[in-house]
């Protein structure tokens, strides 16, 4: 674990942290330690999935996003709503109302990420025709899942499909179309994503598979919700804007939406980061080699379950289901029918930078030293009680042993070991007293 700082949206509010073990026990990559009564996030291991934000009863885990004030930083601003935003409003029958409300809030234009998802769907469907690619191909849409693969399943990185996320594709199209329509320079436009999760914020600041993100900032869905809710409570006063996305693109807001958009029957859709972990383990064992596509979403229900959403994820999922069905009734077009072939070459759809393995789990750069350390880890683990209670501040006894070997903890921080030691000392004192008498 080196201490090189990486950008992370997920952070700790030291004032609010009680030093309990909730986040510690739920982190999928064992990236949290409690030391001196406060949680600490190990930068190298954190995948920004936001599980700790969800689980913390004291709201001490937070996601850094941009505030609405960011609108003042640009001459023009284009909102890029994630399709999960539509799921936050139970009363709407047409996504166009949300687009209109965003305009009303001060954005000069709105470009739907669902439209980016349409383009990406067509690109992935074409990728799947290439038999030389490894199977299953793994979706690259959820940045938390891609980072989980980097940390815990580096050998599966070649399976990750090298198509950019819908957010990135949408940002590029949005900027290009806006500049053409208004005759302004690309740098005059701020492309701002409305995000359901910290993982997307991190993906903007430290992109996956590309050198630079096309997105200029991310506003939390929770923050913008409070501004949109009053506008969308009076639909009779609003005129919906035309939506350009298909029902399939909107469906990306929920788990299995991507799979439906690429018309892949032989796919597995998994939601929840721990569930993704289990299934990736099976893919690693080649147990699912007959599978064509794997769609993993870190949040339960898909993006509608993001830590920065307001509405209950099951309600939001239902809202999306209805919106998809309404949209498809009006325009039954599939992404393939709706996205013109000319668009496929016009924008950067492929990643241009390899996604590298993250070696945060490695004990040492030198394999011989790593082996010595691993042996020591095994010896220490055998001596520990195996309760995995977290009292020492490490998530499991084994992780504690690793921390000792790496120099981040010492054995007496285990209260059970300490208790045993104190008992032995007490007995020795009694013995000593008796011999002196």
């Amino acid at each position: 674990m080196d201490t090189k700082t990486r950008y992370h949206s997920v952070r700790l509010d030291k004032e609010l942290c009680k030093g309990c073990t909730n986040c510690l026990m739920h982190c999928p990559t064992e990236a949290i330690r409690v030391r001196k009564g406060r949680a600490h996030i190990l930068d190298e291991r954190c995948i920004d999935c936001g599980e700790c934000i969800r689980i913390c009863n004291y709201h001490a885990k937070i996601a850094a996003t941009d505030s609405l004030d960011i609108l003042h930083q640009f001459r023009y601003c284009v909102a890029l709503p994630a399709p999960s935003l539509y799921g936050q409003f139970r009363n709407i029958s047409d996504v166009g109302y949300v687009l209109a409300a965003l305009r009303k809030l001060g954005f000069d234009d709105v470009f739907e990420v669902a439209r980016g998802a349409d383009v990406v769907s067509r690109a992935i469907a074409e990728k799947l025709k290439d038999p030389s690619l490894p199977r299953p191909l793994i979706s690259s849409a959820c940045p938390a899942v891609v980072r989980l693969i980097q940390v815990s399943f580096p050998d599966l990185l070649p399976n990750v499909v090298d198509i950019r996320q819908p957010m990135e594709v949408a940002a590029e199209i949005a900027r290009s179309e806006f500049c053409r329509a208004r005759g302004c320079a690309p740098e005059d436009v701020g492309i701002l994503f409305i995000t359901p999760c910290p993982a997307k914020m991190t993906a903007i600041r430290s992109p996956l598979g590309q050198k630079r993100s096309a997105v200029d900032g991310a506003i939390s869905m929770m923050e913008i919700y409070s501004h949109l809710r009053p506008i969308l409570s009076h639909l009779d006063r609003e005129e919906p804007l035309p939506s350009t996305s298909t029902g399939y693109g909107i469906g990306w807001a929920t788990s299995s939406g991507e799979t439906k958009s690429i018309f892949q029957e032989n796919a597995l859709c998994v939601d929840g980061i721990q569930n993704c972990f289990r299934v990736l383990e099976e893919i690693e064992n080649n147990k699912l080699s007959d599978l064509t596509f794997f769609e993993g979403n870190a949040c339960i229900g898909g993006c509608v379950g993001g830590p920065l959403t307001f509405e209950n994820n099951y309600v939001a999922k239902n809202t999306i289901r209805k919106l998809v069905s309404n949209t498809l009734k009006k325009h039954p077009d599939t992404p393939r029918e709706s996205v013109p072939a000319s668009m496929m070459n016009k924008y950067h759809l492929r990643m241009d930078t390899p996604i590298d393995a993250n070696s945060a789990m490695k004990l040492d750069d030198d394999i011989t030293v790593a082996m010595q350390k691993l042996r020591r880890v095994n010896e220490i683990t055998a001596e520990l009680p195996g309760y995995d209670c977290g009292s020492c501040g490490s998530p499991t006894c084994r992780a504690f042993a690793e921390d000792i070997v790496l120099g981040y903890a010492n054995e007496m921080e285990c209260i059970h070991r300490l208790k045993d030691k104190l008992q032995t000392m007490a007995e020795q004192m009694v013995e000593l007293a008796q011999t002196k008498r």
Partner: protein
Amino acid sequence: MSSTLLHEDYPVEAEDYTRAGEASADIKRKLKQLGVSAGVLRRVSVASYEVELNLVIHSRGGVLSLEVTPERVLLVSADRGPGIPDLELAMREGWSTANETARSLGFGAGMGLPNMKRNADEFDIESQLGTGTTIRMGFLLS
């Protein structure tokens, strides 16, 4: 040959489906901690899972061991029987003697041994009817 720096034995019981896969999961975890490259890791993952499942499905139980030196990863599976009557046949793709329980769980496609051989750099199998089978698989680290 250089000295073994890491040695781990994993007892694997026959038909113990609840624990099946735990040994290979631990092996993977250890190799990731050692910083073994992704390519080798992938091949060891596949082979160790196959060989562990073979012990569960086909053997009377045995031991899977992991040995690591700076040059190679060695997996050895040694079981207590029943032994393979025709090794040549067993190595053929699609040949399987898995029972109904195993098949109902999605195993028994007859790819186990061929898969192991394909993924390992060195592969050796010995079997004695009534005594048991020993499989050795080597994976070069450089």
